[in-house]
């Protein structure tokens, strides 16, 4: 199956500043892909190029097989975009705005009514449909913006910071909504909030200073495993024993102070029964273990590793 999005060596210059630098990636149908990066890393620029709002300075981008520059109208028909901060026409009522967006997406009559009603129900907008969008809270504005994006069943949904500024309940609701779109829509979302993107996306790409550092951070983080254990006994003995277990790459000790058992974080290659082998070796060496757990894949660590590398290289 051909990818929904295919970016090849996309670069964007704003005068002397390179906002996007030689970015290439593909998004397959049904994926929920997160684009993670700090503010100013080029996420919004990349999305604007993807939606045909900006033209790339170099490289090419295709959506559903159509070039974003040469076949902009076909791309716009295949895509729905929710820009950051939910820009809306403040003089329009919510229902008017949704109808307007449905109309310019080619929905008319009964189809338009059904689409507007379905989007409003999905985003729980029933109580604000007759309110001017200019009077809505930030959370409702975001929901209206997402509701308009759902109109017309687009192939690709592009969401720029979809949970920004929402309260925790709204964040959970939007997160659930995006997850529920998996399979039916392909979703590309940008965020600078790491835990947020980790909870929503099935694949995470990391962008820094316009460069795509990884096309799948979750896979990188899952490449190894981290085991946390708390053990009594001499630290040197624990290090010796653990170091002798196959696949262990490094051991870091975390001292809580006092006579409490030392906590260790062991990084190792992922393989079956690794934790059991470590525990067995330690017990056989006379070390008592009070706690052992596998640290779930750590996007934060991958993010920090990747984003430090360029800085270190520069230094």
């Amino acid at each position, binding site marked *: 199956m051909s990818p929904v999005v295919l970016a090849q060596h996309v670069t964007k210059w704003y005068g002397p500043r390179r906002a996007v630098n030689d970015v290439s990636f593909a998004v397959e149908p049904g994926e929920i892909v997160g684009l993670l990066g700090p503010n100013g890393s080029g996420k919004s620029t990349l999305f604007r190029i993807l939606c045909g709002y*900006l033209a790339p300075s170099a490289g090419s981008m295709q959506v559903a097989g159509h070039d974003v520059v040469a076949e902009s109208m076909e791309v716009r028909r295949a895509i729905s975009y929710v*820009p950051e901060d939910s820009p809306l*026409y403040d003089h329009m009522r919510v229902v008017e705005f949704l109808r307007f967006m449905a109309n*310019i*997406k080619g929905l008319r009559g009964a189809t338009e009514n059904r689409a507007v009603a379905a989007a409003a129900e999905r985003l729980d907008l029933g109580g604000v449909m007759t309110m001017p969008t200019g009077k809505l809270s930030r959370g409702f504005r975001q929901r209206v913006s997402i509701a308009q994006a759902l109109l017309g069943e687009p192939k690709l949904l592009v969401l720029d910071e979809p949970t920004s500024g929402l309260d925790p309940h709204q964040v959970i609701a939007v997160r659930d909504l995006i997850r529920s779109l998996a399979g039916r829509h392909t979703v590309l979302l940008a965020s600078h909030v790491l835990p947020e993107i980790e909870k929503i996306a099935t694949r995470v790409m990391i962008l820094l200073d316009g460069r795509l550092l990884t096309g799948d951070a979750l896979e990188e983080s899952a490449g190894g495993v981290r085991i946390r254990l708390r053990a009594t006994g001499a630290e040197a003995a624990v290090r010796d024993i653990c170091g002798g277990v196959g696949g262990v790459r490094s051991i870091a000790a975390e001292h809580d102070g006092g006579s409490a058992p030392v906590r260790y974080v062991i990084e190792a290659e992922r393989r079956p029964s690794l934790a059991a082998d470590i525990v067995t070796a330690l017990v056989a060496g006379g070390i008592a273990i009070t706690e052992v757990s596998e640290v779930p894949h750590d996007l934060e660590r991958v993010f920090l590793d990747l984003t430090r590398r360029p800085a270190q290289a520069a230094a």
Partner: protein
Amino acid sequence: MNNFGVLLLKEERALFSSPIAYVVMTVFLLIMGYSFTLTLFLSHQPSLVHVFFQIFVLFMLTVPLITMRLLAEERKLRTLEVLLTAPVSEIEIVLAKFVASMSLIALMLLLSGAYAAVLVLFGDPDLGPIYSGYLGLLLFGSALVGVGLLASALTANQIIAAIVSLSAFLLLWIIDNFGWLLPSPFDTLVVNLSLSVHFRPFAIGSVYLSDVGFFLSVALLTLLLSVRALARR
């Protein structure tokens, strides 16, 4: 309804839900009503020539107020991003804004038609100059809206858009005064850029294709440049 119709409806709603349209219309009608009454009582002539010249000046002052928000506001509020990533063309967007603004111009002219009706009811005016005057004002209005729209397409700041278009109108109004001072053939070239030179014949009852062509050319050229300004991203 096609996309142009949908966009036009949206523009009409935006225009007539904003106080600017009503303030502009009220000021226009108050000033023109006063001017018409005064001129009629002083001259006792069933003519709208003076009124047309005053509308000419008033349009140059009010059109920037109508056009300044058209694209600058969309750019500033970032709704342009929503619009330009939806399946609508830049031409449809620009044309919808142009036609909506022209509808306000046409409404103002229609309301000023009360002065012509008074003359017809109580006098025996020569209708030719009245028809040509209104045709001239409509064409003149379309050129002004085109220039205003272009200014609004080039900035996200409404005030800057208004000042740029107002400056352009004032310059093109009086440019013939400077043009006459230039050597040939530059004098003809500059004088023919003047809005007043091309409007004057309409107001006094003469319709020349060159004047019609001038206003239509300005309107079409500025619309084309506005579309280019939107497409250049």
